[in-house]
């Protein structure tokens, strides 16, 4: 154990010192160049490590993944569009796509509604109460999905009817005289998928709440006062004045949650591993890669994921350019 700690410390120091030395050397290198070259080259030297990391870990692998998606399971031979056609025609993968679509429809919208509701309610509390409530609701963000898995096992767990229940939900059901339900295996109406979505809502509502709350506080008071003087109801003020003014933040939250949902892996992996009809693309990707050792299918799945994300990317870039012009 002691050796372990010493090793870890050395690793930490070595890694950090290595990065510092790297920049020192890059800078020294620029300084020995003739000064005209130094000025020209320095920006690129400062950017070099960042772009090396991005090129090596995102850009090159993305291209390689695209190539693998047209190759067989062991990436030894090209098979054309076979991976795509196999996946898209298999009913299991169609199911997975349908589940992912449900997540996309429910979770981002649900997160925003919950976040807005909590933010606008908490805004009416006294500051100490507001801080307490918000911290409590924000906290699951720090816990992470694996921790959330451990926590929610004690909500959804099911024991046979002859035993005592240790899952809270079944505790309530049996308390009212009902029979225990195996929640996570209950795929009719995709109930189990919705129960997993509840976990993500629980984890992310605080994130939406914090962003939206700050946006709501930023709405100029005079517009609200004017509406109030004109006799507008609180509801009308909220939907006609507050909502339009926080539109940008709403879109930001929506996109962030949407991207998160597309990549959702941990919650489903930990709770059901995609069984009982709860599979989503990111879990399917993992299982194709490891359980089935099929790099071709795995690559094809993420390429499809990437295609879905491209419109979001275009929107992001446009938004960024507009902001830069305004800066």
């Amino acid at each position, binding site marked *: 154990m002691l050796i372990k700690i010493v090793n870890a410390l050395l690793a930490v120091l070595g890694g950090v010192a290595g990065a510092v030395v790297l920049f020192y050397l890059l800078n020294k290198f620029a300084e020995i160049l003739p000064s005209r070259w130094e000025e020209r080259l320095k920006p690129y030297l400062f950017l070099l490590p960042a772009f090396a990391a991005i090129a090596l870990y995102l850009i090159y692998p993305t291209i390689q993944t695209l190539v693998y998606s047209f190759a067989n399971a062991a990436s030894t031979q090209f098979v054309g569009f076979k991976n795509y056609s196999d996946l898209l025609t298999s009913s299991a993968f169609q199911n997975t796509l349908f589940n992912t679509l449900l997540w996309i429809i429910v979770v981002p919208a649900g997160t925003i509604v919950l976040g807005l509701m909590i933010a606008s309610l908490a805004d009416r509390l006294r500051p100490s109460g507001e801080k307490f409530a918000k911290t409590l609701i924000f906290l699951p963000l720090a816990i*992470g999905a694996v921790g959330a898995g451990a926590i929610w096992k004690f909500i959804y767990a099911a024991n046979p009817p002859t035993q005592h229940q240790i899952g809270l939900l079944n*505790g309530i059901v049996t308390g009212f005289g009902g029979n225990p339900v195996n929640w996570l295996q209950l795929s009719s109406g995709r109930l189990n998928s919705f129960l997993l979505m509840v976990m993500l809502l629980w984890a992310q509502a605080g994130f939406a709440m914090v962003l939206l709350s700050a946006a709501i506080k930023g709405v100029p008071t005079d517009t609200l006062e004017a509406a109030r003087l004109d006799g507008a109801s609180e509801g009308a003020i909220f939907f006609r004045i507050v909502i339009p003014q926080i539109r940008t933040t709403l879109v930001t939250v929506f996109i962030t949650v949407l991207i998160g949902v597309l990549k959702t892996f941990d919650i489903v992996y930990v709770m059901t591993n995609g069984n009982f009809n709860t599979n989503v693309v990111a879990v399917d990707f993992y299982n194709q890669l490891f359980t089935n050792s099929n790099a071709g299918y795995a690559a094809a799945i993420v390429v499809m994921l990437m295609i879905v994300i491209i419109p979001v990317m275009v929107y992001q870039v446009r938004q960024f350019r507009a902001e830069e012009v305004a800066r």
Partner: protein
Amino acid sequence: MTSSGTVATPVDVGEETPYVGAKAGRGRKHDPGAKSPVWVRIVLAIICLLWIIPTFGLAVTSFRNQDAATNSGWWTSLSPSHITQFTLQNYGDIFQKASMGEAFVNSLAISVPATIIPILIAAFAAYAFTFMSFPGRDILLILIVALLVVPTQVALVPLLKIYGQLGISGTFLAIWLAHIGFGMSLAVYLIRNYMATLPKEVIESAKIDGASHFQTFWRLIVPMSTPALASFAIFQFLWVWNDLLNALIFIGPGPNQPLTVALVSLLGQQGQGWQLLTAGGLFTMILPIIVFLSLQRYFVRGLTAGSVKG
């Protein structure tokens, strides 16, 4: 966040903004000193209860003995007559039977460099983007913005093959490099947006005084950018600490496994007893919760600024 890949939060870090429970009472529609309507307080109290009960159940179970934890619901233990079932045994067991202590050290050894190194690298890049002009700057910056939303899964298959050839799978180096690469675009983006709000005159006068870019960076820009660096640091630390996908792929179960991987194997073997899972779960959460609560102000400031401006 809950899924793999860095959270692509298209916000920038700007001027001081309200954080959780902000004191921003000025100009609010409701007088902050006044009592809020009863129904508001009741609804919020219910929401708070719903939010905390799941975690509370885990915390209670982690102190129950094996027999009690596997044979009855945690809520039954709340009556005073059940006081005898409470024990610290589970916390001893997770170190002896599940090697959670080792996993904790591993998690630290993974998270600390995977947080500090990208910040350093990104800060240099952000400096170049903000204070130096060079051909190709705008294109490169747009590339960073575009990459914010790329799911890191697209990189995993080829990386796994490369790591296999290099023989570094399962090492700390393998996962550090992955987290540095995956977190880089968000880091550069957040830090650059903050630096862009710093007064340009400071840099100009430093230049006139004969300071090199290297000196200006360390002596002026890094100290002035602390809020942005801190907010990304918390983001990245929480993300790396809680990451499961990359840990499974690049490290996997074994002597170098972090807490998330150790906890997942506990989740898989419920036969061993629920009480170990709960103690392990709570133990995994302690550090991120402390980091989060003590640095919340920076975290939220980083999240909110910018996105609220627009």
